[in-house]
């Protein structure tokens, strides 16, 4: 097949397959008539009714707030700790056992503890829980990013008499940013998961809460609409991050093209 024909077929597949899958989903749910798997069309109608925009403010906004706040705190803490640890070998040795433990423990194991310690299931508990676990991917990537900075760059800055604080702001941070961004991407996805899980466990508002309540009351339509919403949220946040990364780190792609490996 000629290259042009190949391209055309690939484009066609790219459009047709997703549509085909959706139609198949609809067809199957119509045919199966299962109590737990409402028709795709029903789900979409529910989705529009609930999330656009009647329950948006009540549930989507709190969930988004928790994700963004938790993520934001994790970014600040992760970078603030990661930079000095990136420079200090002994700091890393001392911090390693803790980092290794907290990144390996499944976050849900600490959900009940988090509630017990903070005596609440409110926003502070949720945000701090999300922030705590989202620190680690960013922290680790910041450390790696700092360690990987070319010493020539630092020597140049030093030779021009640029002091440490300014060096960190103007050289270390930008140079490590591509690696830090990779950690941020992971943390953002993690934040969504942890948000859902913590709201499902104990909450009075939020998308995870809706998920739980609709399951408990056997409202399949709203339940599936919540599942779809969670998927959409995850996808949109990832997309927003990818776009931001593409803009701010455009220099990195150009630089990499000239300096591969």
């Amino acid at each position: 097949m000629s290259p042009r024909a190949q391209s055309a077929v690939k484009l066609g597949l790219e459009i047709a397959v997703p549509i085909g899958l959706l139609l198949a989903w609809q067809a199957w749910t119509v045919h199966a008539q299962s109590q737990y798997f409402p028709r795709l069309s029903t789900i979409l109608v529910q989705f529009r009714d609930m999330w656009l925009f009647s329950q948006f403010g009540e549930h989507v906004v709190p969930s988004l707030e928790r994700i963004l706040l938790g993520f934001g705190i994790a970014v600040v803490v992760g970078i603030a700790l990661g930079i000095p640890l990136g420079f200090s070998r002994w700091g890393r040795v001392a911090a390693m056992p803790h980092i290794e433990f907290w990144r390996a423990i499944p976050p849900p194991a600490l959900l009940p503890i988090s509630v017990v310690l903070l005596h609440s299931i409110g926003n502070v508990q949720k945000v701090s829980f999300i922030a705590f676990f989202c620190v680690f991917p960013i922290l680790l990537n910041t450390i790696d990013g700092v360690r990987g900075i070319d010493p020539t760059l630092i020597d140049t800055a030093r030779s021009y008499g640029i002091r440490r604080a300014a060096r960190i702001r103007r050289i270390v941070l930008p140079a490590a940013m591509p690696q830090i961004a990779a950690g941020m991407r992971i943390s953002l996805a993690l934040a969504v998961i942890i948000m859902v899980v913590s709201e499902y466990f104990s909450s009075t508002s939020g998308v995870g809460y809706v998920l739980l309540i609709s399951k408990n009351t056997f409202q399949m339509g709203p339940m599936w609409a919540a599942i779809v919403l969670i998927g959409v949220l995850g996808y949109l946040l990832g997309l927003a991050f990818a776009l931001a990364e593409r803009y701010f780190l455009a220099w990195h792609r150009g630089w990499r093209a000239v300096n591969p490996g």
Partner: protein
Amino acid sequence: MATRGDVATAVTTVEPRVQRGVRLPFERLKVTLVFVGSIAASLLLWELVSKSGLISETDLPAMSTTFSKLWDFMHTHAFWTAFGQTVRGWALGLAVATVLAVPIGIFLGTNDFAARAFRVPIEFLRPIPSAALIPVLFLTLGTTLKSEVFLAAFGAFWPLLIQTMYGVHDVDPLAVDTARAFGLGRYERLWRITLPGAVPYIATGLRIASTVSLILAFTAELFMGVPGLGQKVNEASSYGLTEDLYAYALAVGFLGVAIHLAMSAVERRALRWHPSQRSVL
């Protein structure tokens, strides 16, 4: 005159009097001491914070209490049963994910038509937090091992799939062309060139997937009451048995660390074996 070794080091501090580049015999010992000392210090801090009442002991049982509780548990049959159930759920979830993700990943990585066809569905399904499926599983498959394995496998599938696709894609085109010039058939090329090149990526994917699998296996137990450590945590939480709660959390933490160390070791092994580390094709 300054020594040669100094040219190579990144200089951000003043050089010490001792020459760099000489491996001090106490290096290993010092590192171990600091590492262990750090752990000891934080455990001590835990004990102090709790015993002193800074955080009340009902909220934060003392370190000594928690560890002794865990020790007691480890003498009970029930604990090890639950432990084994969680390990089983994790292992099966990871196995199912691997059996599905690696072949599909190889297929999508080598067949561009298929890759393009399924690009959009993958992009949409990938970011879905598997935890969102808990209610569906609860209602359909119930509080059984099947639910746990399905959830764990679903979550572990995606990172492994993506990593496998990258790995297969990343094969050195020169190596493939050379093999073709030597008359190797399509499947032989796949087996001898592409797959070995993809192994490190798959190993990384396994490490990531194993973490995800543990989280989801545990989550299934916690929320659905499937037997295992997660269910024990749920019980302890419902009955307000804070000491048990901390002890189980500690146990899960250790399990997580053990799994992470094991998978990282496998990953390192695979990276060493990578064709790029060998001399010539």
